[in-house]
């Protein structure tokens, strides 16, 4: 590590890596500091060899793959979108391909649902170009709009008119709706309803009865793509290779203790057990609370900014479970679990009932579970082991009377019971397991309040993300930029926040 860099990026998650690559590619001298001993953030498992906490990696934009030439660095994309398997309460299951390419899989649907579903596909397909464009560009400056931006915003709005009166009306009507109202209007199939509902609810504190979730579903439909072969860890590997190639200085195991400022402008960063590094520009992948309350001198943070940071809603309600298994549960083969996610949720009403307790700081005895399997080849031997990754909703960050090992055990039993009801032999397959509660995710992965998407994707935190004064990545503190999941367009391993931040910086 040298003593001076043009730009310092804090956090080597997929966004930090993307920002660093983009800047280095343009000839900037970039230092990327990462607290853990390996890159990836939540996209990489605990020891740097497994997939991370999120089960999906299908939001990566083609534009980023080509700009950073990631295919050359080993990134491979699946030819199809992820497969969803809804586990029915009566032991049956239901498969959907998330790009819904394969209509044969929909044959279990009733004639009515199939028609409604085709109409849904047509409608979301019509919205896709418009929403995709919005979520692929640096958001306009709503505080001080420049004429060019106003024009481009107007153009976007006019392009909405191209939807035609009927679809535009429908879009405006359904966007603020709750999943329940929206899906009940269309479909009868519980499987279809639950799988779709989860896509719009995962990123916020919402359940089927909560309003505005439909907008998130429509956005997801517009930006989702193919999955990464092997999962999120291969995205991290490709980005790491790219960063090395473009000349980014990668410093793992470096704990940043302060962002140094003088007269309200960034001048460097302090690193634990290391001399400070001078720089004029710092890019933080950390959340606003960590960036502004932990790394910045309090006197430098203006009162309004402090208020906004305080009120940014980023409390996670998802626990993560990782189980090493002897082998896959009966009926599943190695090939059949690739690029596939299972959902044990029950109907929309069941999901809502799983959600109710979290509002009071409690958890349900029937949590909603999404899970997938991955095979892991350990270093020396050629023995393949099987790992199950699961995300469990809705788990309070702060339990009413505090978390204890007893309570944690109880939660694990609840989860196990539900999985057992679908795979009878499951308990017997467990070699070891680790359940991580939201506050443990925060400690271990440095993710603010354990929120896996960098803060709720609620409307007021989506387009002006995290809040208006930082909505275009630049913060009120001169030389400090945000480039993590807490910036537009939000979390989900799309790399888009890092990419757009670098773009905004380079075109400033």
């Amino acid at each position: 590590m040298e003593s001076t860099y043009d730009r310092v990026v804090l956090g080597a998650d997929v966004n930090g890596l993307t920002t660093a690559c983009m800047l280095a590619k343009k000839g900037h001298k970039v230092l990327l500091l990462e607290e853990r001993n390996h890159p990836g953030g939540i996209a990489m498992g605990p020891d740097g060899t497994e997939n991370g906490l999120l089960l999906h990696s299908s939001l990566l934009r083609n534009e980023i793959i080509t700009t950073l030439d990631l295919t050359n660095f080993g990134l491979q994309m699946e030819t199809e979108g992820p497969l969803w398997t809804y586990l029915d309460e009566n032991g049956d299951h239901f498969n959907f391909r998330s790009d819904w390419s394969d209509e044969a899989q929909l044959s279990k649907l009733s004639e009515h649902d199939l028609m409604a579903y085709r109409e849904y596909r047509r409608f979301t397909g019509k919205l896709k170009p418009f929403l995709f464009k919005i979520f692929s560009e640096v958001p306009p400056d709503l505080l001080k709009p420049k004429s060019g931006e106003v024009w481009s915003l107007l153009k976007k709005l006019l392009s909405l008119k191209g939807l035609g009166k009927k679809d535009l009306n429908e879009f405006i009507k359904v966007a603020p709706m709750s999943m329940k109202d929206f899906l009940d209007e269309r479909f009868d199939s519980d499987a279809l309803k639950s799988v779709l509902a989860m896509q719009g609810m995962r990123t916020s504190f919402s359940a089927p009865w909560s309003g505005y979730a439909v907008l998130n579903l429509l956005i997801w439909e517009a930006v989702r793509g193919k999955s990464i072969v092997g999962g999120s860890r291969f995205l991290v590997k490709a980005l790491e290779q790219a960063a090395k190639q473009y000349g980014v200085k990668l410093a793992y195991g470096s704990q940043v203790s302060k962002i140094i400022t003088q007269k309200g402008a960034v001048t460097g960063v302090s690193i634990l057990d290391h001399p400070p590094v001078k720089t004029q520009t710092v890019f933080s992948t950390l959340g606003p609370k960590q960036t502004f309350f932990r790394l910045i001198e309090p006197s430098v943070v203006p009162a309004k900014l402090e208020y906004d940071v305080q009120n940014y809603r980023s409390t996670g309600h998802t626990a993560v479970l990782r189980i090493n298994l002897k082998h896959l549960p009966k009926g599943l083969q190695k090939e059949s679990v690739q690029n596939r996610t299972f959902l044990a949720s029950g109907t929309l009403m069941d999901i809502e009932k799983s959600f109710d307790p979290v509002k009071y700081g409690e958890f349900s005895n029937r949590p909603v579970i999404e899970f997938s399997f991955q095979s892991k080849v350990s270093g020396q031997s050629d023995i393949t082991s099987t790992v199950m990754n699961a995300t469990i909703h809705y788990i309070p960050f702060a339990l009413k009377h505090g978390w204890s090992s007893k309570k944690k055990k109880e939660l694990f039993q609840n989860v196990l019971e539900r999985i057992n009801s679908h795979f009878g032999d499951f308990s017997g397959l467990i070699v070891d397991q680790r359940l991580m509660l939201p506050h443990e995710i925060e400690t271990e992965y440095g993710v603010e309040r354990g929120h896996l998407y960098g803060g709720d994707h609620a409307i007021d935190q989506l387009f002006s993300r995290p809040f208006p004064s930082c909505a275009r990545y630049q913060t009120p503190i001169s030389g400090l930029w945000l480039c993590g999941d807490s910036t537009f367009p939000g979390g989900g391993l799309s790399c888009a926040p890092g990419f757009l931040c670098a773009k905004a910086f380079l075109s400033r």
Partner: protein
Amino acid sequence: MRTKYDAIIVGGGHNGLVCAAYLAQAGKKVLVLEKRYVLGGAAVSEEVFPGFTFSVASYVVSLFRPHIIRELQLPKHGYDVIPMDCSFLPLPNGDSLARWGDMHRSRREISRFSKKDAEVYPEFSKVMTHMGKLAKEVIDHPAPDIHSMKPTDLSGMLRLGKAFKQLGPDLLHLNVKLITMSALDFLDQWFESDILKAPMSVSGIIGTYLGIRSPGTAYVLLHHYMGQLDGAFRSWGFSKGGTGGISLACARSAMSFGAEIRTESPVQSVIIKGGEAKGVVLQNGDEFYAKTVVSNLDPNRTYLKLVGEEALPEDVVKEVKRYKLRGSSGKVNLALDRAPEFSCRPGIGDHLRGDIAIAPNTEYLEKAFDQAKYGEFSTRPYINAVIPTLTDPSLAPPGKHILSCFVQYAPYHIKEGPEHWPQLREAFGDTVVDTMAEYIPGLKDMILHRQVLTPWDLEQSMGLTEGNIFQGELTLEQLLFQRPIAGYAKYKTPIQRLYMCGSGVHPGGGIMGASGELCAKSMLHSKAV
């Protein structure tokens, strides 16, 4: 019998009467047909028990537009609204919180629970009142149609754009929060005390099938800051003679301009010929003809009952059926032997002359909603109670009082099916009385009579489909140019010469009179009548 009118108004609710008054004032020949023996719709006063006059359904007023009062000369016709000065919150632990019209007094009370909240409280009121003025801009004009390139719509949008721009960036963001956040999340950003947040958050859920944690409820908080009495913002009031007094004033005003009003004249259907409304048929077979027909009924009744599916385009029928009504509240009116006293703040003081909220904490309120989600009435409900007789003793015999309780949640769609509400009616009434009795010792012995209205009863007696007190949910997808359905939001319908003037059209909800006024004005403006 064959007199031809310029306009027939179906339904004598307060909006229908306001509409009639404006049309009559413009010299039109108007006939109002009301199903019941009494006028007012949900804004009605009835002597339900000898000597006791209840504001049966709607019980307080705040949003009635001041210019309507002026233009229709309502005070001359008996309009008299007495401001309510207090919002009282009794607590189960014997404590209580009263918020007063006098800000200093409120702050003193709040500071007992949180010094910080007491400091923030005036600032919050200021900001909300400011935002309320913007909302006023919205409710005082027809909602512009976003598809239209007509000058009126464009200028309407421009006017709104300007009003929003004047807010400045910070308030604009706050506005986005207000429209999309939940009432509780929004209040969490301002206050720390649950005891303050609980009674404040309920203004976000009144009349909705949503909870204080449901996104979209923060917006309804504004309604509390939009109220205008005598031009003063954010005050609520009691109508002299009950809320029916307002309807009667509107009716007298309409009659003074020459309108004809007939009660006990239920309309069966609208006569339609060649896609045009020609008049109406009563249930007894009588026919009345007019150049225009205006329906004060909710969109569901207007389209599906008065007009009928067969006369409507298929996509309109589909949209009308999507329109959500889902009533969520009931009403329990009690005739009392004496004035009720609260154990937490004894005496019959000024704190009882406003509204009284049973909303002890936010968890209580959200749990009340949880039950409703699954089709049960809340066994621990949110109650907003008033004792109108302390302000207007003429409503009850000397020394006697009325305790009128608005109760949420009582979902129309209970899991047994709405037609089973009559069997649950008394249990529902008992729940409310039991809850109130926790705060009012000896309440049960004071009760002389009780009237329990479930959403089913509101539908049966007042014609409010699914018992929805606002003629349709006030959620974003059913507001502005989408109320009740996109394309027919500006008081028109697909049937030529058939108009709508109830709460089911913009701006909808509450005793505002705005829907009736805007309907009449837009009819006159377009020379439809």
